[in-house]
């Protein structure tokens, strides 16, 4: 489904990604974890077209999408969400859901002026779909509410709903639980599991390890821009380098050691 081969990305001389490789197979739910600054978000951005990697390749469904525009990547079926939902206050929940859909006719000026009837039909279908997704994520009662005025957790859910409007083949979620209350977190995990059974492939960037073990079949651990481990969530504690990446940061000895290790490698 998604193959990332040795991508590198530097920002002002600092390597955010240093040859990371990831593979997500169709129908899998994969987690991407790592300490702050390890390059998780950059990896997500490189896959979804928001950053152009300096080196390496990104293959989506066998097609090379390295450096493609975000909308072109999305059209191939990869839809991502953002760590901060930042939904607009000037658009209703329903409007946002519809904006998440791909209404081919309504999106052109010509069609929206000329073929009223077909545009209306297209929109009516999208409205039906939006209602059913809103019911599923339990936001249907808030359909007329401004999206930006929902709680952080509801905005996250709505972002997921918007992404689902376009029937994505693979969903990439950037910290879906950040700012989400615990009960909604459980609900979110259920939604993701359900989506997986429906055939949606998932790649989740997350800090919350419990959420990761609830949702993911497999995790990649990213540290300083490189993948240091790939295993089932339960096996993470068996990897000493993972513990070091997370815990060793605070001890200066570990930092020196890891710096040495880097010089040597």
């Amino acid at each position, binding site marked *: 489904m998604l193959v990332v081969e040795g991508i590198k990305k530097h920002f002002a001389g600092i390597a955010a990604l240093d040859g990371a490789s990831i593979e997500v197979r169709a129908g899998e739910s994969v987690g991407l974890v790592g300490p702050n600054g390890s390059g998780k978000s950059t990896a997500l951005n490189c896959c979804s077209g928001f950053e152009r990697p300096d080196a390496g390749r990104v293959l989506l469904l066998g097609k090379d999408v390295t450096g493609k525009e975000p909308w072109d990547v999305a059209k191939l079926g990869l839809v991502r969400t953002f760590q901060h939902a930042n939904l607009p206050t000037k658009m209703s929940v329903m409007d946002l859901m519809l904006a998440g859909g791909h209404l081919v006719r309504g999106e052109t000026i010509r069609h929206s002026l000329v073929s009223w009837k077909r545009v209306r039909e297209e929109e009516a279908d999208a409205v039906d779909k939006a209602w059913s997704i809103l019911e599923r994520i339990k936001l249907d009662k808030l359909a007329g509410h401004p999206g930006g005025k929902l709680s952080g957790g509801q905005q996250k859910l709505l972002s997921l709903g918007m992404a689902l409007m*376009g029937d994505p083949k693979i969903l990439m979620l950037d910290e879906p639980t950040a700012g989400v209350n615990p009960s909604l977190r459980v609900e979110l995990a259920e939604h993701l599991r359900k989506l997986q059974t429906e055939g949606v492939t998932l790649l989740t960037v997350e800090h919350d390890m419990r959420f990761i073990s609830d949702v993911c079949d497999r995790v990649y651990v990213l540290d300083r821009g490189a993948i240091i481990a790939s295993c089932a969530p339960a096996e993470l504690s068996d990897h000493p380098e993972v513990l070091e990446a997370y815990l060793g940061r605070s001890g200066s000895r570990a930092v020196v050691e890891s710096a040495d290790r880097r010089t040597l490698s």
Partner: protein
Amino acid sequence: MVEYLLGVGILAAVYAINALSLNLQVGVTGLLNFGQVAFVGIGAYSVAILDSHDVPWIVGFLVGAVLAGAAGALVGRLGRTLASDYWAIATLALAELVRLVALNQDGFTGGAQGLSAVSGIWTGMSTTAREAATFATIVVVLGIAYLVARRVRNGQYGRVLVLIRENPDLAASLRHNVVSAKVRVMALSAVMASVCGGFYAMYISFIGPGQLLPFATFLIFTMVVVGGLGNTTGAVVGAVLITVLYDGTRFVRDWIDVSADQAAGIRILVIGVVLLGFLLVRTEGLVPEKVKAAHARR
């Protein structure tokens, strides 16, 4: 008196077309176009130049629309590489470019003197009847422009444009081509602005570089801000109110003893104060942008 009112009405309708165009860019899409007058100028000069060669006015409008549309698309394309604030400066530069070309291409544009005696519409009629017919014609065109703007705003395209204004990354992640959406809205708006320019030149039967100064753009900005950024009806309301205010202040010399230059300055000052006042006190304008109610279930 009737003729004066008709005159103000014609100006208000012409400006309203322009305000609808600017609202699509600034209000709906969040594109700060400080060079709106460039598109107006392209339309006005196309009509005026072709008219001076005895070409029917409708051809002038078509040529103006094509040229302005192309210019709009080009300016929209610049948004790909420029951040929004730098893009805004670039639009200001474009407007100055158009003005300087108009000022210096004497043989073509009449240079600093501009082009006068542009023939209007309904030339066969007597004065008052002609004003009324012109007013009616422009109101019909405004009606069409209003419907187009409303239809675009309320459809999927408008939804995408608002999302681009509020969160362009989110729009891009949902497979909306942000660059193409901006290019198309700029082209459409530029065509509308060129129509405004054509009628403007025909109505006052003159166009010169003096009318392409940045103030002409800021006058329209004031209309859109007063009416309510992002609201199609608001743009028309703002255009009517500000036209009445701007035209009404022509009589400032009847009330206070100032020179002609000072009076012109006062008129601009009034517009500036209104713009600032609204930006500070009532940012959402008189007819604020609405959050649309959810569509009913089938």
